[in-house]
């Protein structure tokens, strides 16, 4: 049985990220003959002597013409141990929008730097965004080590500098790994390189195959947003009423005491199951159907939560917004908030501060929030909803901000005060 790891890649322009991703696909034999033929033909057309693996991941024609990638692209590769869903996030244009999107589902992120340049401004920004989104593990791939003559001392300087920065963002030592690689040559991507005898750690692929898939769902309190009420009303199931959803956090077992929010109705879990049958226990990420002991009026949008450790029910909270739209945000804006399976109206009461990812500090009372900026706001909702702090339970602390006029997704929202943990001085 192989497991699934969702990861994101980020890097600045010319760090060789497309080549690294192409190399991972190529070295795991995820590139098939017709795709490779196409790349070889295109490489010859461009006068190259070896196939340009970055062409494997160039997508739309508009990008090929401009030679840029403008959007998150998803890639798939697998080894006997693990399958990988890779969100390839372009670094230079709209980097916040793309990095936030890729990071929202990632269990690990691979950040790229050019060994000749080391940790640059954009590396620090990317790492800050990844920390904000709570990506549990980072890998710094120091690429193009062949171009610095496989110099251990230069590599160590970069690794130390990054470790210090990651620590200031709250990453513990064991959650960050720095690897010297050459995506072009293949050093330490899938095979250990003889050129770096001083590096004794795993190759990038070995690390991806063996890194624990965090977080442990047993540590978080149980949360199940009700997506859909299953009521067959068939002769076989005349009174069946199942509450269907994907477990956002924690685990659930028959007999567990739960509370249905926002109204606060208490009851007991009668059974947990799927179409394949009843389960003794189900955990975060599982799409299940729960039956409750009492006949309550529960609808889509409600949240079933652990009675012992319940989220706050409120119509007002502070949150970080990653602004993803070209339409800027001003205080007083009316928006929609989609949280779990519930969408409510909201008012942006205050724009408290803007986070500067470069200096890890905050700017107080900005006039507006623009595309790719990250800010802290005070939101007031038209009704009470159950929310967790994003740091405690990401899937019940996350929300979308939607434009009520045209339905565009304006921002990624994270409940709570997020900046102080990133070294930002809030007040």
């Amino acid at each position, binding site marked *: 049985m192989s497991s699934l790891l969702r990861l994101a890649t980020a890097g600045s322009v010319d760090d060789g990220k497309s080549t690294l991703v192409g190399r991972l696909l190529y070295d795991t034999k995820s590139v098939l003959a017709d795709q490779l033929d196409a790349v070889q033909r295109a490489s010859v057309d461009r006068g190259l002597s070896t196939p340009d693996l970055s062409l494997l991941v160039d997508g739309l024609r508009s990008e090929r013409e401009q030679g840029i990638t403008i959007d998150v692209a998803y890639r798939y590769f697998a080894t006997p141990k693990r399958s990988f869903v890779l969100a390839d996030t372009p670094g230079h244009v709209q980097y916040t929008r793309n990095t936030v999107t890729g990071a929202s*589902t990632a269990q690990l992120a691979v950040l790229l730097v050019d060994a000749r340049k080391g940790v640059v401004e954009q590396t620090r920004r990317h790492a800050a965004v990844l920390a904000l989104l709570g990506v549990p593990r980072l890998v710094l791939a120091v690429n193009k080590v062949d171009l610095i003559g496989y110099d251990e001392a230069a590599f160590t300087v970069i690794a130390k500098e990054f470790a210090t920065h990651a620590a200031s963002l709250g990453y513990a030592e064991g959650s960050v790994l720095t690897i010297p690689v050459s995506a072009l040559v293949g050093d330490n991507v899938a095979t250990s390189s003889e050129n770096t005898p001083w590096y004794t750690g795993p190759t990038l692929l070995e690390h991806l195959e063996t890194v624990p898939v965090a977080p442990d769902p047993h540590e978080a309190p149980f949360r199940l947003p009700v997506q859909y009420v299953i009521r067959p009303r068939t002769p076989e199931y005349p009174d069946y009423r199942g509450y269907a959803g994907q477990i956002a956090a924690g685990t659930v077992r028959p007999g567990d005491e739960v509370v249905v929010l926002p109204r606060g109705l208490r009851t007991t879990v009668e059974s947990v199951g799927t179409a394949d049958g009843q389960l003794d226990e189900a955990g975060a990420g599982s*799409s299940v159907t729960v039956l409750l002991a009492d006949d309550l009026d529960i609808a889509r949008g409600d949240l079933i939560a652990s009675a012992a450790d319940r989220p706050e029910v409120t119509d007002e909270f502070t949150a970080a917004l990653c602004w993803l739209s070209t339409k800027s945000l001003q205080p007083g804006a009316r928006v929609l908030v989609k949280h779990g399976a519930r969408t409510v109206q909201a008012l942006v009461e205050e724009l408290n501060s803007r986070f500067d990812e470069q200096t890890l500090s905050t700017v107080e009372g900005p006039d507006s929030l623009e595309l790719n900026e990250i800010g802290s706001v005070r939101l007031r909702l038209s009704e009470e909803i159950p929310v967790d702090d994003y740091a405690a339970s990401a899937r019940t602390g996350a929300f979308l901000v939607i434009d009520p006029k045209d339905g565009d997704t304006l921002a990624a929202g994270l409940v709570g005060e997020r900046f102080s943990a990133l070294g930002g001085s809030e007040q």
Partner: protein
Amino acid sequence: MTTLEAAADAARDNLTALESEAIHIFREVAGEFDRPVILFSGGKDSTLLLHLAIKAFWPAPVPFPLLHVDTGHNFEEVIDFRDRVVEKYGLRLVVAHVQDWIDDGRLTERPDGTRNPLQTQPLLDTITEHKFDAVFGGGRRDEERARAKERIFSLRNAFGQWEPRRQRPELWNLYNGRHRPGEHVRVFPLSNWTEADVWNYIAREEVDLPSIYYAHQRKVYRRDGMWLTEGPWGGPREDETVEELTVRYRTVGDGSCTGAVESTASTVEDVIAEVQASRLTERGATRADDRLSEAAMEDRKREGYF
């Protein structure tokens, strides 16, 4: 291993994780849209979609109808399979016959006789006629480079067109299905599946498929490097010789441009072994329509194809 660890392991299993994600997507659409529909041709990806939809709403019936855009260039085994499945699960099937559009002049037959590109208009007309607002498709991001950036919820304008600039960022498992009147959303629950995942899941769940996915004897002729089968769509031409070979299909589309591959894989396990050893992508191997140009898929998507 404790039961807790075993349960955590099971939840992290690749196929179970993909299944949970797809079921979540089905339920989200059921909760947010008024008139969803599943595109169902009887092919393996749409059969897998239906299997997941049945599991998502069990023990209640699937709360959506099915839609088949029928080119008329069918494999008999697939149509029989389609009709059996519809009857078995008590589903409602809407069929848009491309022939009807040709007969009344809304469409013209192409000189090469292929009807895959003709599916777009009947699809859009039927979406409009039935006011479908969410259309499930079996598209996967691993199929083709133009699909690597496709969203799970893909917004289409009133002309059914896909506009790269209007696609929304997709964050966490929160999907934004808002659309204006006349617009609809294409939904791809299998986005994150690979061809290997599809076959491994079909094996695990013992999903029934049309027989042509497995090795069988068939009279075929060679055209454009593919084995095409005889049929009402024309062919073979005089210069093309018919041979009887042991073949199977990796994809099923319009009969005029879906090629068979030589194969002796007669069980799902054989197919998995063959897919693992294969050196060609599904589409590269068997779909003439994707060979038209390197940007073929991108163009067809802009026009409102799947």
